[in-house]
């Protein structure tokens, strides 16, 4: 078609017999306009089509970062003065590095030039002026600071503040060490062999094991006098039973649970809330435990072992049993022994360093390894994740290394979205969707399966209602109705398609739902009575005198049935109350709850299915009617001529021929139902439960996007998760529509041959 014009004009303009005239100025102008127009239309058309397809690519681009792992790049090394660092940390702006040496001294270095900014002991000097040897030490959780224990029975900690001064040329950070807090565990001066500490507001506590194997919990509460501002500290000590010497010890922030590990591969758990249970519950895990850490939220315990296994344990309570430590996530086994595990302060990320100077960053919820690789320094003795999760810190004798860490969406992953995940506090792996809770401590539960389930459930219920009604009505309209009636009936049903879904949702949620709850029995009753009433009315109509009957066109009966059905519906609703009294003790909903154990939400799938069915019927009807009407008349005539009656012709000739078109109608109806948003938002209750009961609410992908996206900040994991939901919807409808379209095109070719 592109060259039509030139071919047509050329011979006329330059026929050989006539003298060749130069094209007039006007013709040149017109040709230029024509070329310009072609160029504009082609470029514009292609651009529009490309941009329309670009929607898909844009969604994909928004989702793609979710699946990316972590990127770790060298961020510079800093010389440090500690001979053997026990712990390392940095401030939020990453201007300084602080280390705790095995000599019990806290040193703060400026990053970059490595200048020593502060150097102070963690322990007050003893009477004889000597610093006691440090037996174990580490970082505080959630606040910058160090804790350590000595060989003479003391435990002390010290917080570090990084004061930020916002100046025009940039923020200036000044580190400042807070006063020492010291607790004497053993006045006799036995060495502390293992210790764990926690602090929460004014109360803090330490659990320590002494060289003689005894285990103590010491709590310290600081009370401030409101008038004088004077602070008084009170300490309380409690002895705990311990069957073996411990190598690692971890206590949660509220001091409710204490976990210990032994060299012979046993994992111990004390429930500190229960004063009677001083004895721990013991689980044997095989190889010696070499590293132990709680993650944020104080539920998941990451365990690293000598043989390289790296697992996450949770307190799990199977139904009817006492809760016990259970392995919920297992990471791929490491080549060397796991030496250090350090948690993130923001989410369930952790860094594990193993023998052979290799490391791994994992995410416990998804059991996902985000990064693993070789470390740029040998013999790291301390490690940390920077407060903003933007770096990994590693310290070895004389040198500290900062690795820039970029992982914007650690909690995402295909397993999280579509697989069963063993969440903290659950008895088994499950699919769960929970709206964002705002706190970092809550484990994000963003499985899309319950939403997908809700979408399909809503679609199923609406199609169950809509498909038979729409197809039968379409068959009747196209095959049994006179054209003069069809002319009005078709647009009337199509008007239904134009009803805004927000109006349908409003009617369903506020008008229909309470009435369905009140007259529930009326619905099944109507389904039973309606066909009987219609057939009875038809019979009655046949009994009318033929002369009278012949004054109506074919299909006028359907209009009469409207009144019949309205009367039947009224009768069914009126009967529902006496039925309820007679058979269901006067209250059907209460009866169902007690006799069948079924919960009844007012906004349930029956209401939703009805409302969405109304939205879908006209679409299915319109396409199905076309499919029926397009069946070549010659086929129908042939069948009738061979003596088949009309019903036989329709079911054996028309229906099989039109069936691909009907399939396409149903697929397009499916696509519409899947994407329906406002009706689901308004009539479904929006509860993400996975349950086939028709009396429950649900939450669909589309409704979830509509209700949650205003809360999602741009670029966050949650934001991208909603884009993933949109992509899923896109894919579902695209698949359904493409199938329908292909079938329809195939059908068109077939009819062309007939």
């Amino acid at each position, binding site marked *: 078609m592109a060259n039509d014009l030139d071919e047509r004009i050329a011979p006329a303009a330059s026929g050989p017999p006539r003298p060749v005239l130069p094209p007039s100025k006007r013709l040149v102008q017109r040709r230029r306009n*024509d070329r310009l127009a072609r160029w504009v239309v082609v470029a514009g058309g292609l651009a529009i089509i490309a941009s329309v397809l670009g929607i898909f690519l844009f969604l994909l681009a928004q989702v793609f970062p979710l699946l990316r792992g972590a990127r770790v790049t060298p961020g510079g090394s800093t010389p440090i003065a500690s001979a053997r660092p026990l712990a390392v940390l940095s401030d939020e702006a990453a201007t300084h590095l602080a280390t705790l040496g095995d000599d019990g001294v806290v040193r703060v270095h400026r990053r970059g030039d490595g200048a020593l900014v502060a150097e102070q002991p963690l322990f007050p000097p003893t009477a004889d002026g000597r610093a006691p040897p440090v037996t174990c030490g580490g970082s505080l959780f959630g606040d910058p600071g160090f804790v350590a224990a000595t060989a003479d029975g003391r435990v002390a900690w010290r917080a570090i503040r990084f004061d930020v001064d916002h100046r025009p040329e940039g923020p200036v950070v000044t580190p400042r060490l807070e006063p020492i807090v010291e607790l004497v565990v053993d006045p006799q001066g036995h060495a502390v062999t293992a210790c764990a500490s926690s602090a929460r507001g004014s109360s803090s506590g330490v659990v320590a094991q002494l060289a003689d194997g005894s285990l103590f919990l010491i709590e310290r509460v600081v009370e401030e006098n409101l008038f004088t501002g004077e602070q008084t500290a009170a300490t309380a000590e409690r002895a705990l039973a311990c069957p073996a010497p411990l190598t690692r010890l971890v206590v949660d922030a509220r001091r409710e649970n204490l976990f210990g590990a032994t060299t012979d591969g046993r994992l111990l758990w004390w429930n500190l809330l229960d004063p009677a249970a001083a004895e721990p519950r013991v689980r044997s895990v095989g190889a010696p435990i070499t590293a132990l850490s709680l993650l944020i939220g104080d539920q998941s315990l990451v365990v690293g072992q000598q043989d390289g296994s790296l697992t996450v344990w949770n307190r799990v309570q199977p139904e009817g049993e006492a809760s016990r430590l259970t392995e919920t996530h297992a990471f791929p086994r490491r080549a060397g022994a796991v030496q250090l595990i350090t948690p993130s302060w923001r989410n369930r990320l952790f860094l594990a360093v193993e023998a052979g100077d290799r490391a791994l960053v994992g995410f416990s919820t998804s059991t996902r390894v985000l990064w693993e690789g070789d470390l740029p320094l040998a013999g790291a003795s301390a490690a940390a994740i920077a407060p903003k999760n933007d770096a990994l810190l590693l310290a070895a004798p004389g040198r500290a290394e900062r690795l820039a860490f970029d992982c914007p969406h650690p909690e995402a992953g295909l397993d999280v979205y579509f697989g069963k995940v063993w969440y903290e506090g659950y008895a088994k792996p499950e699919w769960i969707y929970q709206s964002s809770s705002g706190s970092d401590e809550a484990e994000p539960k963003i499985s899309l399966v319950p939403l997908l389930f809700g979408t399909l459930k809503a679609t199923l219920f609406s199609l169950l209602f809509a498909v038979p009604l729409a197809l039968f009505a379409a068959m009747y309209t196209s095959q049994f109705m006179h054209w003069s009636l069809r002319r009005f009936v078709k647009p009337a049903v199509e008007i239904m398609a134009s009803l805004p879904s927000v109006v349908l949702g409003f009617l369903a949620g506020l008008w229909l739902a309470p009435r369905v709850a009140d007259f529930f029995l009326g619905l099944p009753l109507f389904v039973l009575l309606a066909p009987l009433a219609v057939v009875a009315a038809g019979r009655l109509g046949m009994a009318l005198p033929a002369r009278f009957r012949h004054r109506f066109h074919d299909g006028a009966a359907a209009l009469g049935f409207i009144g019949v059905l309205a009367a039947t519906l009224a009768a069914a609703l009126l009967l529902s109350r006496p039925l309820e009294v007679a058979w269901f003790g006067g209250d059907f909903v209460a009866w169902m709850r007690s006799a069948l154990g079924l919960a009844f939400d007012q906004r349930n799938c029956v209401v939703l299915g009805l409302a969405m069915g109304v939205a879908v019927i006209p679409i299915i009807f319109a396409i199905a009617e076309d499919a029926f009407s397009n069946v070549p008349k010659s086929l129908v005539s042939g069948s009738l001529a061979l003596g088949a009656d009309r019903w036989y012709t329709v079911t054996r000739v028309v229906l099989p021929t039109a069936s691909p078109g009907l399939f396409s109608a149903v697929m397009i109806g499916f696509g519409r139902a899947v994407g329906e948003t406002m009706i689901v938002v308004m009539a479904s209750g929006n509860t993400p439960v996975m349950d086939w009961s028709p009396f429950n609410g649900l939450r669909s992908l589309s409704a979830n996007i509509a209700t949650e996206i205003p809360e999602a900040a741009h670029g966050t994991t949650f934001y991208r998760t909603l884009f993933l939901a949109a992509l899923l919807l896109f894919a579902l409808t695209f698949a359904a529509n493409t199938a329908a379209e292909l079938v329809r095109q195939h059908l068109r070719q077939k009819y062309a041959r007939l």
Partner: protein
Amino acid sequence: MNSPIAPPPTAAPVRAPADAPARRRGNGRALIWLCGGALAFNLLLVLAQLALIAWNGLGYFWQRDLVSFELGDGRRLLGEVHAREHFRPADHPAAEELPWRIQVKVANREHTGADFVWIEEREIVRRAEPADALHFERSEWGNFHGFLRELHRGEQLLASGDAAWPALLEQIASAERQREALLDVEKGPLGDVQYALDALRLDRRRLELDAPAADERARRTAELDAREKQLDQEFAGLSERIAGLRAELESVRATCELADGTRVELPVGGLLTALRPNEMSTFDKLLCWGGRIFGFLVDQPREANTEGGIFPALFGTVLMVFLMSVAVVPLGVLAALYLREYSRQGPLVRCVRIAVNNLAGVPSIVFGIFGLGFFVYGIGGTIDELFFPEALPRATFGTGGILWAALTLALLTVPVVIVATEEGLAAVPRAVREGSLALGATKFETIWRVVLPAAAPGMLTGVILAIARASGEVAPLMIVGMVKLAPALPIDHHFPFVHFDQKFMHLGFHLFDVGFQSPDVEATKPLVFATALVLLVLVVAMNVVAITLRNRLKSRYAGSAL
């Protein structure tokens, strides 16, 4: 049903008919009836919905009689009866007949706590319709039901007893004039001053960002200071004037008696209309009904959208749809022209056509989230950084607004326009084109002068369908720019007159918000029905026009057989 091809029973062939066809025929008839029943049920659904919305929506404007009730426990109520239903008391014996209760709109929200109360019919001792029962529509606290006793201006008694009612009507009329004067000042000069002050603040910020040389800075600062001083003075003067008008409005007060005998004083300035419904004839009520429908369409909302009119929502819907049409028509027509007239028909174009058809079936919420990511955060964020740095971190275009909403809907509806225009183009007979080409017209001239005019009904159908779809669509707009209550219309007399960055109100969202997120859903339901009716009329009317156009288009070319 009457089947013309069924052979008459008398014309039986020689051999007795086989059993099966006879049975089939009998079944067939019943099954055909059932199919007819399915169609009838669909039609019933359409009719029932339209009737339900029309009845409830139009009923919202009807002034009902005020009924006074005396209950067994001594309570006295005055209100409109809205519903009557069976209910199930907590300790009701299951087998017994359920008692009736009625829903009464007692109004007087500040005294009763809720607009609507349910009372059990068996508790009613006496019911009457007092002729002097009053119905006020107020600018605050919803409606008022009671009896008028006295009218005061300050301490001075203006009228009492029977004379109070005509005096009150007079006062209400003058109060309305005062309110209009007040509104003129608030919206006019005061609004301008506030707008100028806001612009001044941005100018200061821009000065900071520009960081010019010291003398330049001093000059500009002095200029801004002078302007600010002048504006502040103007502002103070206007505020004084407004305070004066307010005081005047407050000065006249009506003393009324509630149903239970308590006396309350109401400022007449806060009364919008006063009626004695029980004295009104049906014709009066009909006039009042028409006036309320008109008022509903042209008034501003009150009390967080739960009362008053829906004008801003209607205006926002129409403006947004207009902007969308401006965007979608050239895009859709261009794409359709390309697909039908310029491209080489082949597998590629077939794929594109399938993709475009598919796009029409993609859920609207997907477009919404796309609009948020692409238009709002992508393009809008960039515009803010480049052109409105002084307003940051407050976003100008980097947040939902009417332009982004219109563009999102344009994307959503572009397939509809493409498909309809293509159909229109395809229906133009080949001979017409060939005739034009044969006369020496270029291809573009043929399309522009011959094909497009012939295809215009098709394009129009597409545009109307697009508009109908866009005006009913809510989900994507919730994300890209609709708000519950927009303080200002997106068009005003401040440069550049149309504010594309402004959020706007929309009928559909208004319906969702008032129906589902207002504190007293039961009380606002009638208003939601009225809004639904407006939306429905808008959408259905456009669809009817589109369907009629399409039918005309079909019949125009159906007979030509070219």
